Each structure stands twice: as C-alpha cells, then as structure tokens.
C-alpha cells in the first residue's frame, strides 16, 4: 500500500492502462502540452507522444464525437471534458451517440469509450459549478461512475477503460488532493458495486463523491455522541447497486441521502423511491435527502458556503432522525 492522492491514483490508472494496451489514447482540451487542466495527465505528452495524447480544440461536441468514432473504429479512447459543465455542449453526442449506438444498430457496433470529467466548484459562479450526474444516470446505455476515494478511483477507472461499454467517469475537482491508501499491486474494481465505507447501526447515510467525505466526517462527530451511522458509498450511479443500502436500512430503519446536486430529480430522488418501494416496512422515519440549495450558484464566497450541506448540518439532520 502507498498513500496516493486522488489525482495520482487516476494518473496511475491512465498510465498503467496506456502501457498495457496501445489502443488506449487520451483526447481532450489541454491534456497534452499543458499536462491537464487539473494536472492529471502531467508528463503524458512527453512519455506517450502526440499520437496517443491528443490536444483538441475547445469543441466538446468534436471531442466526444471523434471519441465515439475512434471507439467504434477499434480504439479505446479516454476523452476528457475539462469540467462537467462543458458536457452540455456535447450532450447530443453523449445521449444520442455514445449511449445509443450499440442498441439502435442492434449490437453491430460497440463504443468502448471513457469520458472523464470533474464536477466541482470554488467561486466559479453559475455556469462552472454544477453537478450533472443525475442527467447521465438517467440514460440507458451509459455506465456512470463517481468515485470518492483514491482507491476506488483507480480501480474503477481501470475497469472503465477495459469495459466494452461507454462509461461516464465523473471526478471531483475538490477531491484531487485527497489522499488515501492505494495498493501497489495491479487491481481493478467492478463497476456497479456499492461499498459500505463505515458500519453503523442507527442511521444509514447514502452518498457518493465529495459528499461521502462530508458523511464520514459527520458520522465521526456523531459517534462521539453515541449515534452510529452506516455510510454507504454508491461509487456507481448507473447501474445502481442498492443491495448494501437495503441491508443497511433493514438494520438502521433510517435513511438519509446526501448529494451535491440539486435534490429535485437528483440521485437522491431515485434512491429514496427505491428504498420506499422495497424497504417500506423497514422504515421508522421518512427517507431524508440533503443537497445543494436550489438556486444557480452565486459567486460571493459567503453565499457559496451556504449552498451545500456540511458536517454540522448533516449531523443535525441525523439527530432529528433519531430523536
């Protein structure tokens, strides 16, 4: 085991897969000479050259469209969208081509493509601070992965690159510096498997990506007061692995879903619906959701800080649920 940052874990996954399979190539804005806007692909241009590290124009529809064609044509592209906000420019490609080609041509073509893109915020105002994971998780034909830890990020990215299906691999800008244990030996993790990150008996907190860390922080604080939260990390948003959530709710009888997205039609809505449908009799209190305030992101720092649940507000909500 080594201590690695989330960024390093992703970089290692990309590098290992590029060394393993020469059909893997990376394309996107600033992935080459610049070394990646978030420095994930630093050094790759020198190591792998311009044939495999393709700098593109700022044209997301061309990045994803070309990655689709390259994937159909036998390559295994990893396309980077600088931030998830820019995926909107490529939405037609993602929804109508990436997700549909295998189905609408009756399995004649495959699109083994990974789209890497970070969510995140930090005084970036309304158009550069969004979380669209639920939009992608809505679409049959896509796999959607959103890891929270270096270990999960590396193992899931390697699995995504090896998958014959298209994968939206959503990172988080505020996690790149987060450290965690990563095995030195080769490993992959299965896509579509949730993971219990902290066992507990009183309340189930379901989360993913950056909010998982908020959940774990709140759980740590609550433990000091004798309230034990079980924290389930979804890791993959499509397909959803609900089994660990159901098992947990059977034990705790309480579920809180914590997401960074707006809650209306967000991941939490889906998870709450499934818990209500399949573990209705286990629930002692209504399923709760916490997420972003439903306004466009303001620039001012003090206002931005009010946008998301934090450890304190999560702990408060849990205490209300067990009261």
């Amino acid at each position, binding site marked *: 085991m080594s201590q690695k940052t989330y960024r390093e874990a992703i970089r290692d996954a990309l590098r290992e897969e590029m060394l393993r399979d020469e059909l893997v190539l990376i394309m996107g804005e600033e992935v080459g000479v610049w070394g990646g806007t978030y420095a994930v692909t630093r050094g790759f241009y020198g190591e792998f050259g311009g044939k495999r590290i393709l700098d593109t124009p700022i044209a997301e*529809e*061309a990045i994803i*469209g070309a990655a689709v*064609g390259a994937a159909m044509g036998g390559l295994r592209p990893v396309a980077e969208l600088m931030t998830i906000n820019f995926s909107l420019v490529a939405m037609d*490609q993602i929804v109508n081509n990436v997700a549909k080609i295998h189905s609408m041509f*009756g399995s*004649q*073509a495959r699109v083994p493509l990974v789209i890497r893109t970070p969510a995140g915020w930090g005084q970036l105002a309304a158009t550069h601070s969004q979380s669209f994971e639920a939009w992608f998780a809505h679409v049959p034909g896509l796999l959607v992965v959103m890891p929270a830890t270096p270990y999960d990020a590396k193992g899931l990215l390697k699995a995504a690159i090896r998958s014959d*299906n298209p994968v939206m691999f959503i990172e988080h800008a505020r996690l790149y510096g987060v450290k965690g244990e990563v095995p030195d030996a080769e490993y992959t993790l299965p896509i579509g498997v949730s993971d219990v990150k902290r066992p507990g008996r009183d309340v189930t907190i379901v989360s993913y990506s950056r909010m998982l860390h908020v959940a774990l922080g709140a759980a740590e604080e609550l433990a000091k007061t004798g309230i034990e939260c079980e924290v389930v990390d979804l890791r993959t948003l499509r397909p959803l692995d609900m089994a660990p959530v159901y098992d947990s709710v059977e034990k705790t009888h309480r579920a809180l879903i914590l997401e960074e997205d707006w809650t209306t039609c967000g991941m939490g809505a889906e998870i709450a619906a499934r818990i209500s449908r399949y573990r209705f009799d286990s629930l002692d209190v209504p399923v709760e959701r916490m997420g972003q305030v439903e306004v466009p992101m303001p620039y001012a720092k003090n206002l931005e800080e009010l946008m998301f649940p934090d450890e304190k507000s999560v702990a408060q909500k849990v205490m209300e649920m067990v009261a």
Partner: protein
Amino acid sequence: MASTSPSRVSVEEAAGINVTAEEALDWFRKMSLIRRFEERAEEAYGQGKIGGFLHLYIGEEAVAVGAMAALRPEDDVITHYRDHGYVLARGIEPGRVMAELYGKATGLSKGKGGSMHMADVRRHLWGGYAIVGGHIPVATGLALANQYRNLPQVVACFFGEGATNTGTFYAGLNLAAVWKLALIAIVENNRYGMGTAFERVSAVGDVYRKASAFDIPGVKIDGNDVLAVRDAVHRMAERSRAGGGPQLIEAMTYRFRGHSMGDPQRYRTREEVEEAKARDPIACWRRTVLENDLATEAELQKIRDEVEAEVEEAVQFAENSPAPDPSELYNDVLVSE
C-alpha cells in the same frame, strides 16, 4: 486519350478512368433498385406496414451509387438519416433493408433502428444518424482510428446541405483537417432542409466554398450524373488516401418526394419539381448508356424486370419475417461483460 471503343466512355482522360459496360449496367441496376425499393416502401407505408418517419431518396440515387462505385469495400461509410440508398448501393440484401423498415427481427439492426438507422458494420457501413450534423465528428473519429491503426481506408461521410449550418459540421471537419485525416465529406445538396430553401438560411449559398474554412479542397459537381459523382469521389478518395487530408464534395441534386411522408410541399412549386424531374438521374444515365452503346434497350428492360422481382422478393421477405421476440426488448442496451 478519348475513347473510341463503343463499350467504354472516357470520363477523365488524365487519369484514364473509364466506365465499362459492366459498370454502366451495375449502376443502372442499383439506381433502379433504390428507386423501385423506395416506391414499394412508400406503398407499404401507406398500408401502415412501415411506421415512424420514412425519408425517401428518390431523385438522389446517383450520389449513393456513384460514390459507392468509387469507394473500396473496406472504406468506411457513415451517413445521415435519408439512408436507404447507401445501403442498397453498397450491395446489402434489399430484404434485410426492407425488413428493418418493417421492424422485423431479420432487419439489418434487428428491427431496432428503422428507416433512419441503417447499418451493416461488417461491410463498413457505420450507420445512419438522425440528429442533423451529429455524425460528422463521429466520421472524424472513424478516420482517426484508421490513421492510428495505419489502415489504408478512407471514411466517406454523407450529409445534406442543411447540416453545413451546424456547429458539428464546423467542429468535426476542423478537427479532421487539423489531424489530416482520410475523410471525404459528401454533401448532397437537394436544396431544402425540410421545407426551408438553403439560400434562406445559409449565409454562404455554395457549400463547396465552406471547405475554405478548413483550408481543404472543395468541389461542386452534378450529383445527378452518376459518372461525375463516381469520378469526383474517386479522385477525392485517392487524394485523401494518399495523405491529402479531408476533402469536400458538394453534389447538386434534388429530392423528388417530400421531406418525409405527409409533407404537403408548400415550399416549392409543382413546376420546380417537374423541371427537376427532367434531370432524373436514372433517365439521364439510361440515355448515356444507350447513346454510347453500352447496352441495348432490351438489356435495360431486363434489368428493370429483375429489379422488380428482387424488390418483390424483398417485400415478401419482410412480410414473412417474424417481429422481434419480446425478450429482445432488453437486449443490445449494453455489451454483456
């Protein structure tokens, strides 16, 4: 090197490209097949046997047939949604195409694509795409894969003039030009995007001039002349194959039918349509064939009879094929891993 042989017409002296009687008849057969196939599809649509959209290619047959004649079997083809002509021109069994229109299990895409999504990947036909301009960057990617793998094939990307006003046209061809990919963009200019005349909505009326935005060659040709199409595509494809980067061809043609079924065609006059029909690509080619003694009237009639039978057989195949099994609903969404 003007040809004097009655069985050959010299079409490009410098390159010495000629058309043989065999080719001439093959093109006549394929254009006639597309025409008759679509007339029967139109009938079937009227009988409620084909649903959804049905965008007919009637009047534009010379573009698909001429282009496919110029391309090699391993060259990649990707198209827009008015796509029946391309698959038939590539020699795919009409029965499987008709079965796809009927939504049958024996269709090219097992009945999951329909009229707008015809594909036969084994024959390098990467499918019809129905968001205007959306497949142009995908063509760029196919060409990137060929370049990356050192494969000699070119990608032929077909779309209508309407697509040249989209962002994906610009973004896709720009990237293809930057990477010097073997891609030929074949723009079928049938003058209307649905019911809107091109000159009403495009700042530049000549599509071929838009090639200058990418600093690539662009030519305008008579898209109703199958030989002109074959020659232009051949020339552009060979230039592209030899490392010349992307090329653009604007093939002037005309759609005799409405945009899709149920188009009242208020945007053009009957006279305009009749005038265009006077330049019917099949009639024109028939005349050329006869004038150059490439075939006799009887031989052409025999081909038409054979095409009639072939289309009838395709219809029967579609009629007699089973609908997809209900269990198929859940298949093909993801690759099983």
